[in-house]
C-alpha cells in the first residue's frame, strides 16, 4: 500500500515544521550563540511565520505550489545563510514535484533528495563540515534505503529521523569548516550545529505528519 502525499499533507508538513521551529526558536538561537551569531532561531522563526501566513492567506493547490511558495518566502524573509539554503532546498523540491497532484513514497523521497541537492549546490557543504548537510544527507539516504527495502513511508521516515538525529548529534565533536562556526576553528568542537538541529526538525515534522502509514 503506497502512502499518498498530497497538497494537504505537504501543507501539514510545512506547518508542523513551522510549529517545531517556533517551539525550538530559543534553543536554536542558543546553539547559534555558542558558535555563530545568535540568530538562527530568530531567522527561521521569522521565515516560517511568514510561510505559514502566506499558505493560510491563499491555500496552495498543488504539491509544487506548497513547496515553491515556501521556498520563495524563505528566500525573501530569512536572509543569512539559512535563507538561501532552505529557500533553495524548497525551490528544488518544488521543481522535483513537477505537476503531480500527489506524490507516492518514492516520489516524496525524490523530492527530499532534490532539496538536499539544492543545499549542496548553494552551500557546497561536504560531510563532516558541521552543517545542516550532516543531518539532512544521512536522513535522505536512510529514507531511500528503507523504501528500497520495501518499508512503508512511515517506517522509512522514522528511520530517516533516527539518521538525522544521529547526524545532528555527530556534529557536536566536529570542527566546523563551513559557515560562521568555521571562524572559531578548534573552538567550534563540542557544540551542536544549529542548522543540523533545525533540519532535523524538518525531518521530524515529516515523520509526524506523513508517517501515519
Amino acid at each position, binding site marked *: 500500500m503506497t502512502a499518498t502525499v498530497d497538497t494537504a499533507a505537504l501543507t501539514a508538513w510545512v506547518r508542523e515544521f513551522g510549529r517545531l521551529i517556533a517551539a525550538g526558536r530559543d534553543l536554536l538561537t542558543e546553539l547559534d550563540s555558542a558558535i555563530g*551569531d*545568535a540568530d538562527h532561531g530568530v531567522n527561521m522563526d521569522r521565515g516560517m511565520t511568514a510561510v505559514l501566513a502566506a499558505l493560510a492567506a491563499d491555500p496552495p493547490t498543488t504539491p509544487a505550489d506548497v513547496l515553491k511558495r515556501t521556498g520563495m518566502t524563505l528566500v*525573501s524573509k*530569512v*536572509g543569512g*545563510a539559512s535563507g*538561501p539554503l532552505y529557500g*533553495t532546498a524548497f525551490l528544488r523540491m518544488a521543481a522535483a514535484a513537477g505537476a503531480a497532484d500527489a506524490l507516492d513514497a518514492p516520489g516524496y523521497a525524490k523530492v527530499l533528495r532534490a532539496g538536499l541537492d539544492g543545499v549542496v549546490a548553494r552551500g557546497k557543504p561536504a560531510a563532516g563540515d558541521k552543517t545542516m548537510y550532516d543531518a539532512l544527507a544521512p536522513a535522505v539516504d536512510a529514507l531511500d534505503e528503507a523504501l528500497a527495502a520495501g518499508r512503508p513511508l512511515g517506517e522509512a521516515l522514522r528511520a530517516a529521523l533516527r539518521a538525522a538525529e544521529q547526524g545532528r548529534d555527530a556534529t557536536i565533536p566536529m570542527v566546523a569548516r563551513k559557515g560562521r562556526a568555521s571562524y*572559531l576553528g578548534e*573552538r567550534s568542537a563540542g557544540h551542536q550545529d544549529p542548522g543540523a538541529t533545525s533540519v532535523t526538525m524538518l525531518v521530524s515534522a515529516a515523520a509526524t505528519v506523513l508517517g501515519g502509514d
Partner: protein
Amino acid sequence: MNQLINDPSNVVADALRGMADAHPELRVDHENRIVFRGDAPVQGKVGLVSGGGSGHEPLHAGFVGPGMLDAACAGEIFTSPVPDQIMAATKAVDGGAGVLHIVKNYTGDVMNFEMAAEIAAAETGVEVVAVVTDDDVAVQDSLYTAGRRGVGVTVLVEKIAGAAAGQHRPLAEVADIARRVNANGRSMGVALSSCTVPTAGKPTFDLPDGQMEVGIGIHGEPGRRRAPLATAAEIAEMLVGPILGDLDFTGGDGVIAFVNGMGATPLIELYVVYHEVAAILAKAGITVARSLVGPYITSLDMAGCSVTLVKTDDEMLRLWDAPVRTPALRWGA
C-alpha cells in the same frame, strides 16, 4: 544589557526611520530597507551597492552618498539582507554603467548577493560584478573552508571604489580597484565584552572582567581564543603581529592605518591603541600615509577594537583623498 530601543524586533526599522529623519539628503525605502543617495541613479556612473546584517553601523548605510555607496541594504541584526532587497537596490542605482556589489565574505551574505545577481541577470540584464572582501587574518584561509571574514577593509573598499566610480570609470576598472584594496588589506580584532543581540536579549557569550577574546569578527561571535586582558600595547602587538606576518607592508606608498571601535569602546581608548599601532609600524619601517580612528564597522554594543592596514599605491591614495559626503565619512565636500 540595557539598550536604547523600543521593541527588540523593530530595531532595524526604527533606526532606518531615524536615518531618514536625520539625513534628508538620503532616500530611504523602508519597505525594502534600502538607503539610497537622494539622486540615485546617477547616469553614466557605476552604481555601488553594499549591504549586510544590521548592527555594524555606520556600515553600510552611513557610507551612502556622493563619493561612496549609491545604496545600502540593511538585513536584520547580523543577518544578511535577502535577494529581493539587493535586487531592488541594484535596479534602482543602475545608471547604465552597471552595478558593483561589495560583499563581506560570510556564507549568508555571499549566497544572498549571489542569488540576487542570478535573478537580476535573468530578469533585468543589469550588469553586476561582485567583489568579496575577506581581510580577517584571525581566520585561516583554505580552499576547504568558508575562508576569511570580511571586516575593516570593507570601509576602505567602499570609499576607494566609490571615488573611482565617482570619476565615471568603467565597471571592470572600479571592480579591479576594489579587489586591489581588499587584496592589500588585512585586519584583526579583539573583544573586551560580548554584545547583546536585541532579540536574544542577553550577551552572546560570557566574558568575565579581566578576560578578552582575541580574533573576533563583527557578529558578536567569540574569537579564536580567550586570553587574560592585556595592556593596549600588548593588544596592539597581538593584532598587528599577525597582520604583518600575513603580508609585506613595507615599501609602496605607505599604508592606511585604521583603528576601529567595536561599538562600546570610547574614542579615548581607540587613540591609546592607535599610538601603540603607530609605534609598532614605525619600528617595522612601515610608513603611515593616512589614518582613520573611530567606530566605523561595529558589532552592536561590543567593547573592543580592530586594526586594519591597507598597503597603498599612489592611485589608491588619490582616491582615498577624493571628496566624500556621507553621514559617517565626509571630507572635501
